[in-house]
């Protein structure tokens, strides 16, 4: 299997989709520009033509409605936003039209529309370039919300989103774009609504998504060496949610830790805790826990993002506490080679 970065896997999925089905179109600010949205759309217009891969005006709400209309007219549009924050301009079209069209017109036509949004973090992205507002979309009946962690999943879930019949909010974390992994070639699909068991173990169920699954994997592996073993569930899709996998795991472990890259209050982690608390009450052996970002915007100064994010050491600490075990976790922080506000040395700014 070829090794690709997450960004390459996205681009590969788009390229496969464009090649396979003439009804697929890809557009967004800068989609055909020389940077190609962090490489994810690079040169696609050269391969598939400028009518199908095109730039757009800074008109997020209309361009979303145009995608809806295009989907109703027989296309399978993919719209890209360089940041989720910009897509807040389009919540009217997403919530009032895309999410409801199929339902409110009696089910006669669906809206196969994929909206990619990139989630920013660190390196001075600041209050309006770093919002992880998956909870907003996950609350809306009629939307699917996808948050892949690995290149393989990014590709497989994007192709499923594009060729499915539903509006999908596809959330890519900027810090994952350079992550490499084996990724199947060709038309590779992963169903929505199925989580992935990233690690298996009996002491604690850890549920995470996107960048938080990476932090969790570090923590879980680190604790495994100390005899604490966890189920690590990488959600992949937030709506629909793989409740069966979560419930089954909690039934075995009796202990739940949920991680979230968004704000704590009203976030996705809270929904999972609530669901488990109401549905698996009898199985829980300890208070469920969540670790999410604080209830405050991410500030710009690196001094202010240092303790803002949940990192592997915090996850390990919480797991150990849930398991009621002593463990060492400080070394997880020490092991990081890069400044806290970048994902690696490949990231030099500006955004």
């Amino acid at each position, binding site marked *: 299997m070829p090794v690709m970065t997450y960004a390459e896997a996205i681009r590969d999925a788009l390229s496969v989709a464009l090649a396979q089905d003439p*009804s697929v*179109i890809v557009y967004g600010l800068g989609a055909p520009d020389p940077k190609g949205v962090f490489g994810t759309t690079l040169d696609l217009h050269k391969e598939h033509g400028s*009518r*199908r891969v095109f730039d*757009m*005006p800074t*008109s997020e*709400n*209309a*361009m*979303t*409605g*145009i*995608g*809806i*209309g*295009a*989907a*109703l*007219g*027989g*296309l399978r*549009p993919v719209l890209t936003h360089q940041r989720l924050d910009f897509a807040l301009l389009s919540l*009217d*079209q997403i919530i*009032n*039209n895309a999410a409801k*069209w*199929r*339902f*409110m*017109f*009696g*089910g*006669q*036509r*669906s809206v196969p529309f994929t909206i990619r949004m990139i989630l920013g973090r660190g390196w001075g992205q600041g209050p309006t370039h770093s919002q992880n507002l998956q909870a907003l979309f996950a609350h809306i*009946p*009629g939307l*699917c919300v996808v948050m892949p962690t690995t290149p393989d999943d990014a590709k497989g879930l994007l192709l499923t989103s594009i060729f*499915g*019949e*539903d509006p999908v909010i596809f959330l890519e974390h900027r810090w994952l774009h350079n992550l490499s992994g084996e990724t199947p070639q060709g038309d590779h699909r992963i*169903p*929505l*609504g*199925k989580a992935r068991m990233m690690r298996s173990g009996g002491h604690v169920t850890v549920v995470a998504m996107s960048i938080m699954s990476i932090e969790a994997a570090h923590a879980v592996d680190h604790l495994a060496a100390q005899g604490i073993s966890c189920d690590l569930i990488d959600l992949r899709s937030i709506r*629909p949610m*793989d409740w069966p996998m979560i419930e089954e795991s909690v039934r075995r472990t009796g202990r739940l830790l949920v991680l979230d890259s968004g704000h704590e209050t009203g976030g996705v982690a809270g929904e999972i805790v609530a669901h488990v608390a109401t549905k698996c009450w009898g199985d829980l052996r300890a208070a469920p826990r969540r670790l999410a970002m604080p209830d405050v915007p991410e500030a710009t100064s690196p001094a202010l993002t240092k303790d803002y994010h949940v990192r592997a050491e915090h996850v390990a600490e919480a797991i150990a506490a849930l398991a009621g075990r002593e463990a060492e976790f400080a070394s997880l922080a020490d092991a990081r080679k890069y400044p806290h506000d970048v994902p690696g040395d490949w990231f030099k700014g500006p955004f």
Partner: protein
Amino acid sequence: MVHSMSPELSRRLLRDMIRIRAVEETIAARYGEQKMRCPTHLSIGQEAPAAAAGAALARTDLAVSGHRAHAHYLGKGGDLNAMIAEISGKVTGCARGRGGSMHLIDESVGFMGSTAIVGGTVPVGVGLALSGSLLERNDIVCIFIGDAVMETGVFFESANFAAVHKLPIIFLCENNLYSVYSPLDVRQPQGRSLAGVAAAVGLHATAGDGNDVCASYDLIAAAAARARAGEGPQFVELATYRWREHCGPMYDNNIGYRSEAEFESWKERDPIKLFTHVLQAGDIIDQAWLDAATREITQEIDAAFAFAEASPFPDPSEAYADLYSKEVMACL
């Protein structure tokens, strides 16, 4: 009113206006029965643009609209039974009762949907046109809007994109001077013409008398021809007037947001009365034709209400159906 239209088309336009009026009057008359339980915006007084657009567009052309869409739906050929059933909340409604008056659809005649958020279908119409252009269909898209849509950001964004991509669209604006109870001058700069703004944005814009169905037809037909010929998006402003209250069946001149004199002056220019006179004067119709038309229409409307009445309500499970594709529904 000089009149160079074929007798067939003339009669069609008049008949369509009479039919729209009669449907709306019947809804108004029966609204008090509390069986049509949803916000309902009537088009009485504004029949001409809808009838003209319906005739000027091909059946395969597409249309979208907003909250006041009964006339547009009927003009385009939408199924009357399905509309009355929809307003009555029945499963035989065009949206299976989920949408009501503000959500009409009849894809079989290209009426692709109307929704309740002002400006909400404007980009949807542009996207339909984009799909037509990429998939090499020959249809054009008519986007029905009111004067208030000219205040929404999404109109400007959509029009701009349509102009950049030279899409085959008619933005058909019924300027009835009001948005709910708010006159134009508290919403838009005085003396600014809607067509003028549209032209500056990059639409080919014309304006005319929306109570003159011939003039309306000519403007729309010309715009449709230009759009079809690849000349890019068009804008047609038609001046007209809503007779009854903004939402609901009553008259509301008494509440004071517009004057009785203004209302009367527009009622004087009743599009149906005007065109009836023209056609009678030109011997294109006579009283017998009018009587027959009225009789047929009344029967059709009675049948539609009977159909709605006889239709079942949707099963309660319908409240939860059709939210997602069956693949995703299976995961819930």
